[in-house]
């Protein structure tokens, strides 16, 4: 599909474990090419935020390596990491909590520049004013404190701070989910414009597929700490491969009368996300999957490339109707009933 460039950031075998037992992120292999926007999607608690933070080494990885621009940052010392972080920044979800209420926004934006690039206070403040203009605020606001701004304005300030040290890579952790819908689009557009202008590489964490469709160039779906599907944006929205992706996408309201919109049957996932401390054996999605067979209960599927640039972690992806047919036959012989109720809603046990 698109011409693949060498990855700016790659993670291999990356795991994050909490309290010795809960594996929030499990052996993730991920490559982010220079200039692309990779969206990490999944429901709450699937480990997407943890993964995003682990990529910046804000969470300690229990296993695996992270390579950024040819450097293995997972082995960097504290001092080395400090300087490396000039190139990797983050936009936070909560635009209030991420701005220090006691500092002026000028000082907030200038801080990364002063600390990682060794710029003088005066020069850093000058740049902070420029950045304020770039994100659509006024340079004269630099002396004000965060509480004087609205949610959308604060998120613009957060973006300005993230861009201050001219990073190459940004993790945006649900940057608009705390904002009013009316403001979301503005912030998304701003983020999109800036990424293009600065040729930024971005990992965009979201559970809102509508936003993802607008922002991302590639989509990675996470379920229970694992990546279950990676695809180019258009491929993903045209037809997801993993049953979980199908369920996610079917939950996005379709625009009536939009001819490009593939009308999907609504798939309602039944049950809760399993306890990450004790994930199911075999495929982690087998407790909620419509196509699960005995194979899925015992054998963990690998994340395999089924077409160019398209990876899926499933024994029976959508592009393999024969496999699914076989699986269906298997299931009929299965004493455990998988109820499949047809229209208008297909429920999956």
């Amino acid at each position, binding site marked *: 599909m698109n011409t693949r460039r060498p990855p700016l950031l790659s993670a291999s075998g990356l795991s994050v474990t909490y309290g010795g037992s809960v594996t929030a992120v499990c052996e993730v292999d991920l490559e982010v090419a220079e200039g692309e926007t990779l969206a990490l999607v999944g429901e709450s608690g699937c480990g997407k935020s943890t993964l995003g933070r682990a990529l*910046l080494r*804000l969470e300690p990885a229990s296993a695996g390596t992270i390579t950024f621009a040819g450097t293995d940052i997972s082995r960097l010392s504290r001092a080395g990491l400090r300087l490396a972080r000039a190139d990797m920044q983050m936009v936070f979800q909560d635009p209030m*909590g*991420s701005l*220090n209420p006691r*500092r002026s926004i000028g000082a907030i934006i200038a*801080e990364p520049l002063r*600390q990682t690039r060794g710029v003088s206070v005066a020069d850093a403040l000058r740049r902070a004013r420029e950045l304020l203009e770039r994100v659509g605020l006024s340079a004269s606001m630099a002396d004000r404190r965060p509480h004087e701004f609205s949610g959308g304005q604060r998120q613009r300030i957060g973006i300005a701070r993230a861009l201050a040290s001219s990073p190459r890579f940004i993790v945006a952790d649900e940057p608009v989910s705390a904002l009013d819908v009316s403001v979301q689009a503005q912030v998304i557009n701003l983020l999109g414009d800036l990424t293009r202008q600065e040729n930024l590489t971005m990992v965009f964490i979201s559970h809102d597929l509508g936003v993802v469709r607008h922002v991302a160039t590639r989509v990675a779906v996470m379920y229970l700490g694992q990546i279950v599907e990676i695809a180019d944006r258009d491929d993903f929205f045209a037809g997801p491969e993993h049953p979980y992706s199908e369920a996610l996408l079917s939950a996005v309201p379709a625009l009536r009368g939009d001819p490009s919109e593939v009308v999907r049957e609504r798939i309602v996932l039944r049950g809760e996300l399993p306890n990450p401390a004790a994930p199911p054996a075999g495929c982690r999605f087998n407790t909620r999957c419509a196509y699960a067979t005995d194979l899925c209960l015992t054998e963990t599927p690998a994340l395999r490339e089924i077409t160019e640039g398209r990876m899926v972690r499933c024994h029976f992806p959508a592009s393999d109707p024969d496999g699914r047919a076989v699986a269906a036959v298997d299931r009929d012989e299965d004493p455990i009933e998988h109820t499949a109720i047809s229209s208008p809603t297909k429920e999956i046990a």
Partner: protein
Amino acid sequence: MRVTQPSDSVPLSLRSLAARRFGAVSWVGFAAWIIVIAFLLLAVFGPLFIATDPLRQTPGALLPIGSPGHPLGTDNLGRDELSRLVHGARPLIGIALLSTLFAALIGTTIGLIAGYSGGWIDQLLMRTTDLVLAFPSLLLIILLVSVTGAGPFPLVTGITVAMAPSFARLVRALCAREMARDYVTSATLAGTRAPRIMLVEILPNLTGPLLVQVMTTISVAAGFSAGMSYIGLGIQPPQPDWGYMVQAAQQFIYSQPSLIILPATCTLLFVVACNFVGDDLRDRFDLRRDL
């Protein structure tokens, strides 16, 4: 037509002026502020306006209040009570302020490092703090002062050691709460080093509770200072000090009760007023938090 605000019709009193500048002030809070400020002014400038030497003994011993030349009378050695009261403010308030300052500095440093670092550093610092906290404060101060000998500097040291742990605990808890907020993560990402994160990012967010604790500690330290002087381990005679003055006047409790009542009331007023100022600050900062 302009509607007259209720506040416009109120005559311009000190309280309404304070309210304009600092927001609504309760009567108790306002009185407490005034008393604390008055005592501070008394301690700093009072001795400059009192010509009478507090140590000079005159022939007239135990003169009553209102005696010519001695508006508050004299003590058993014929020393002017007014002069002794005014000069006695300095040691008590000075010791209270100094030991609170040192306790706040030491305790805040320990608390910030413990709260920021976590792990074994946190454990080490906080268990040491607990160890000090396990001693009753007054006993600890008596212990320290009896080792080093009585006097103002041992007293300051003793009260500092006794008071620092509560600052350490408070700041550690507040700091740990701030650590969970994204702006600290953001500071780490910005490449800000640990000492700067503690002082520039976190500490300014703790000022409210910290100020309340400072006022409470001043009142407790003033109480300790007076108490230690009372039992003879603080300010030594003939230096005038409220705590010591109460002790010296005990034998005249029936003949001249004002010798006890005056220094005791001064101590009490200062201690209570400091507490109410602390309460007033707490109210203000609690309100600001919600905004």
